[in-house]
Each structure stands twice: as structure tokens, then as C-alpha cells.
């Protein structure tokens, strides 16, 4: 399967929208309008490439907190994101219970995750086990940062999937930093994909700044999973252009020169250059930018006017019997 021009533009559009939403979140934080933001700037190519290789609403995802672009690709809306940033009642992840960027979208088979890292990886293997038990052709994508592959939970999940040849894709987004700690302090191997060979599955390292390449790699991994050949570890390499979160100050552990250097490999620039070769004009790009700005403005306005949860809602639903609709 080849990507059409329309598909490529759709992918770039999703990256651009994710970027503009993410940038607005930083602004809202600096304006004192939101309490917290955790950024995915620099991760857009890996996430959009991966998401577009899935069959939306058919395949499953257990994401992690940097996956704004991934979630937008699956149907999460700009309004949803702004509502979540502001802890509003209508926020779809949790009705204002979870911190922002702790995604959940059942319609898209995107499973809720928590903040202790790597807990979502065994869930992906469990979903893979269910798929295998029912003999279905679905795949599960689970995402994680490279630092979190140090957790035992990740190894156990990958081992399970390898032992049972489960249809799981373990996508590691290696952005070089776990908050302030460099990747060299997380692993002695050059890529987390190298860990796969010790566990008996395929490991692939890919350029996580190239959205179209990422689509190819995840597409191949999905094919492998669907044909019963089992799981794949994919490490996508990129650079975390922003601090870890709105509470972090990355000037305390890395130079401005280093960050500026990596901005030249910004995945948006890489994708735009490829699309320009494919005929994307400056005017068309300006139109995309204008459209993105209008959407982000509208989403902020909508979320600001949306109500907070009633305090009584804090008491439920602790148990499934207490779930209320609406």
C-alpha cells in the first residue's frame, strides 16, 4: 500500500494542528489559565505515522501522555484537548478527574492510562491476548518514552507478547530525555529496539522525525502482527524540543544551542519539505495555518465557557455499578 497525496496532506495537517494546539497550551499556562501541560512537540511525526497505519476504531491503542498528535489522528478533537487542559466536566478522558493529556477514548479503542510509567504496556499485551483468543485480525499499538523502557513492566509486557506471539506493536518514542536524564543513563544499548533481540522478537529503529517513513515501519509491524508473526518493538528517534512539562525548566540540564540545533530537524519542517516536493504551495500552507488558528481559537473559547464538574461528581463512579450517563 502506498500513501496517496491526500493522505499525506491529511497526515501533515494533523501534525500541524497538534503543534498549534500544543503551543497554545504553553501560552495558556503562561497566562495562568491552565495549571499544567505536558508537551508532545517534536513527537508528531512518529505519532501521526503510527496512527495512520492503524485501522481507526478497529485496532487498539494504549497510549501515553505525549500522544496528542496520535489521539488527534484517532478522532480526539481540539475541543476535547482544551476541555481536558482546563479540567472541565465535558472533558472526555475522565470528566475532569485526570490531569490533562491522560487520554481515553473508547470509541477509538484508545485505553485510559495513568501517570506511573509503563503500566499501559502489560494492558496492550492483555488486549493482544484477547484478540488472539477470539481469533480476530486486530492489532494493538502501545506507546512509551525511552526512559520508561527501564521499567520491569515494559519488559514483562514485551516478554509476554513474544512468548504468545501476540499482535502488539511496542512503539518507543525516544526523545533523548526522561525529564532531565539522558538516554545513555537509561540503557547500555544504542536503541531500545536492540532490547527486542534478547526477548525473541523483531526490533526496528526508525527516524521518528519522518512521518511517512514511520507510517511504513508501523504498517509493516501491523502486517506482521495480523499475519500471526507476533509483536515488534519500534524505536522512533526524535528530540523533545520543549521542557518535559510546564513545571520543568530544561535550562538546568541542557544548553540552548543543543535545543536550537535539533529544531532544524523539526518533524514539521521535514514533512513540509516532502510535501512541497509533492506540490504543496506556500498559499496552501498559509491556508492550513489560518484554519488551524481558527480551530484552536474556537476550541479555547468553547472550553473556557464550558462548566466545571459539580463537586458531588467527585464521589463517583468508584465502582461500575455507580456509572451515570450524562
Amino acid at each position: 500500500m502506498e500513501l496517496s497525496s491526500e493522505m499525506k496532506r491529511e497526515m501533515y495537517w494533523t501534525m500541524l494542528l497538534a503543534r498549534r494546539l500544543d503551543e497554545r497550551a504553553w501560552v495558556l499556562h503562561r497566562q495562568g489559565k491552565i495549571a499544567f501541560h505536558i508537551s508532545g512537540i517534536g513527537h508528531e511525526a512518529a505519532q501521526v505515522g503510527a496512527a495512520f497505519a492503524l485501522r481507526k476504531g478497529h485496532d487498539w491503542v494504549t497510549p501515553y501522555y505525549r500522544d496528542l498528535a496520535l489521539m488527534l489522528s484517532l478522532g480526539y478533537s481540539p475541543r476535547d484537548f482544551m476541555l481536558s487542559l482546563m479540567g472541565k466536566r465535558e472533558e472526555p478522558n475522565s470528566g475532569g478527574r485526570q490531569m490533562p493529556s491522560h487520554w481515553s477514548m473508547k470509541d477509538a479503542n484508545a485505553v485510559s492510562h495513568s501517570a506511573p510509567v509503563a503500566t499501559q504496556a502489560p494492558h496492550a499485551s492483555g488486549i493482544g491476548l484477547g484478540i488472539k483468543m477470539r481469533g480476530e485480525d486486530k492489532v494493538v499499538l502501545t506507546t512509551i518514552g525511552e526512559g520508561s523502557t527501564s521499567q520491569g513492566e515494559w519488559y514483562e509486557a514485551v516478554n509476554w507478547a513474544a512468548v504468545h506471539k501476540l499482535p502488539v506493536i511496542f512503539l518507543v518514542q525516544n526523545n533523548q530525555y526522561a525529564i532531565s536524564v539522558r538516554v545513555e543513563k537509561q540503557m547500555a544499548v544504542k536503541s531500545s529496539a536492540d532490547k527486542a533481540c534478547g526477548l525473541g522478537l523483531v526490533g526496528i529503529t526508525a527516524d521518528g522525525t519522518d512521518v511517512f517513513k514511520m507510517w511504513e515501519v508501523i504498517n509493516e509491524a501491523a502486517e506482521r502482527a495480523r499475519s500471526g508473526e507476533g509483536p515488534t518493538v519500534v524505536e522512533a528517534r526524535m528530540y523533545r524540543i520543549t521542557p518535559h512539562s510546564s513545571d520543568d525548566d530544561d535550562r538546568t540540564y541542557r544548553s540552548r544551542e543543543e535545543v536550537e540545533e535539533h529544531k532544524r530537524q523539526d518533524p514539521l519542517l521535514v514533512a513540509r519539505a516532502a510535501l512541497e516536493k509533492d506540490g504543496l504551495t506556500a498559499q496552501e500552507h498559509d491556508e492550513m495555518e489560518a484554519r488551524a488558528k481558527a480551530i484552536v481559537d474556537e476550541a479555547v473559547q468553547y472550553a473556557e465557557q464550558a462548566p466545571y464538574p459539580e463537586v458531588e461528581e467527585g464521589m463517583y463512579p468508584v465502582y461500575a455499578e455507580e456509572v451515570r450517563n450524562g
Partner: protein
Amino acid sequence: MAEITMIEAIRQAMDEELARDERVFVMGEDVGVRGGVFRATVGLYDKYGEARVLDTPLAELSIVGVGIGAALYGMRPICEIQFADFIYPAFNQIVSEAAKMCYRTNGEWTVPMVIRAPYGGGIGGGLYHSQSVEAFFTHVPGLKVVIPSSPYDAKGLLKSAVRDPNPVMFFEPKKGYRLIRGEVPDGEFTVPIGPANVTREGSDLTVFAYGMMHYYALQAAEKVAAEGIDAEVVDLRTLYPVDKATVLESVKKTGKALVVHEDNLTGGYGAEIAAILAEEAFTDLDAPVRRLAGPDVPAVPFSHPLQDWFMVNPEKIAQAMRDLAKY
């Protein structure tokens, strides 16, 4: 109606639930070909096949974590932790994930699963095959914590646990696996999760217990009955959420309460029952609430005299009842 052991009741419950619902499956260490180290799953592998009676990697965290994933997908896993002492690697998955999933998604995702684990001492298991771990989990909203003390309840409650839409911690008193026998009717029945059970009516004092200690409490009650002490015994059965009404009602009648567990004293489950009574039954009480529990040492020691020293037994319970009756 047949008289069977506790372990046979548990095996029957799983057998019947596997037959009833194809989403149900069993997984854990040695549960397949071997039929479990306590033989709780014996015969199930041959009957249902390796896809539904799954020998897992030796890794408790992922037994639970993978179970959660399967539950989210729509399956109904029964995860066995071989000994409750080995549950700690899975603590994060149980507390951060299974317990919080419903709340943190406003009900969009739920985790219908059972985590079974044999618990308790008196079997020569030393520090790491004897622990009682219930207090770690009765502090966690989102979990249900169940401990049966009879074959009838074990079967009925386990079947309810499998059908429950929430994560249920199901702790089994391993010393009672073959020691405790009882009548269990043939055919379908369940015991609801939630209500405690008044297993002996009495008027002088109430003993609250669960699991093996409930079995011993009934023996102790018979012993002191001959001395003229008329004790009521309440099997708590579901520790969380607790059946407050039954607890309060019993003490309203007897005016005295003894809480018994084999887990160590401080921060143990008995503290919660004592607190409920202090807050809500103060004027009904004719004596301070008494707790009888294991000593505050890390776990049950191995050497026989040390183990006997640690364990609460019918004689210790009877003595605590005499002391309380005298007050």
C-alpha cells in the same frame, strides 16, 4: 448435597464459570498442566484447553497487568497469584490501574476481573508463604475484597466475583483448603458480595472474623458456650466494602466486640471495625472493643514453636472471649 473441601468448592466455581461464559479464562503460574500448586485448577486444562487455562511467565506484575488488558478488551480473567506473599510486584497494577480505571474514566472503562490468592499461616510456610495481605487492599476504593471461610461461601462468592463488573480480590485461607469441609448443593447458586453473615447467634458478645479465623472463632464459641458465655459470631466475608449495618446491629444486641484476624495488629483490618464501632456504636458498647491479631513482627516465622507462637488459634480466641465477657 455433597460435603466437599474448600479447595474443591473453589475448583468447582471456576469450572462452572468457564463452562457458563466463554469470556472467562484462568491464568497464573502452574495453573495449567500441573493444575495449580494447591490443585485449585486440576482438570481444567484438560477440559478447556491451554487457551483458557493459561500457564503464564513467572511474573506476577504481568499476570495482573495482562489480565487488566484482557478485561478491558471484554474478557473475564481469573488471575491466580500463587501465594498472597507474591502479590507485591503486582501492587502497582492493582492499585494504580485496576482499582482506579472506572473512576478515572468516569465509567467509560471498567475492569471486571478476579485476582485469587491463597493467604495465611499455620502451614509451615515461613515468612513468604504465610502472609495475610488484605489490609493493603481494603484501603483501596475501587477494589472489592472478599475472603470466604466455608466451601459454600467459597463457591458462591467466587462465582459472584467472576460475574462482578469490578476488580475483586479473592483471598483464600490456604490452611482451610482441605481442612474445612462443608455441604455445597449441586447446581447453580451464588453468594452475593457485600453482606456479612451471622453464623452463630448469641447475646453476650460478638466475635468478628473472616477466613481461617472465622472457622476458629466458631470452635472457640462452642468451647466458651460450655462455660456459660453465649457468643455471637459474624463472618465478615466481604471486607471491602464492609457490611456496616450487620456489624452495628450485632453490637447493638451484644454490647461487646472482639475482632480477630491473623494479620498483624497495627493498621490491620480490625482497626477499621473498631473505628466503625467507636464512631457509630459508642453508646451500645459495654466494654472497649478488643482486637486479637498476630503480633507486630514482619511475618510468620518458620520454626514450629515460633509459628505456633505467632498464630491465633481457637484457644487464644476463647481466652480473649472470656476476658471480654468478664469486663
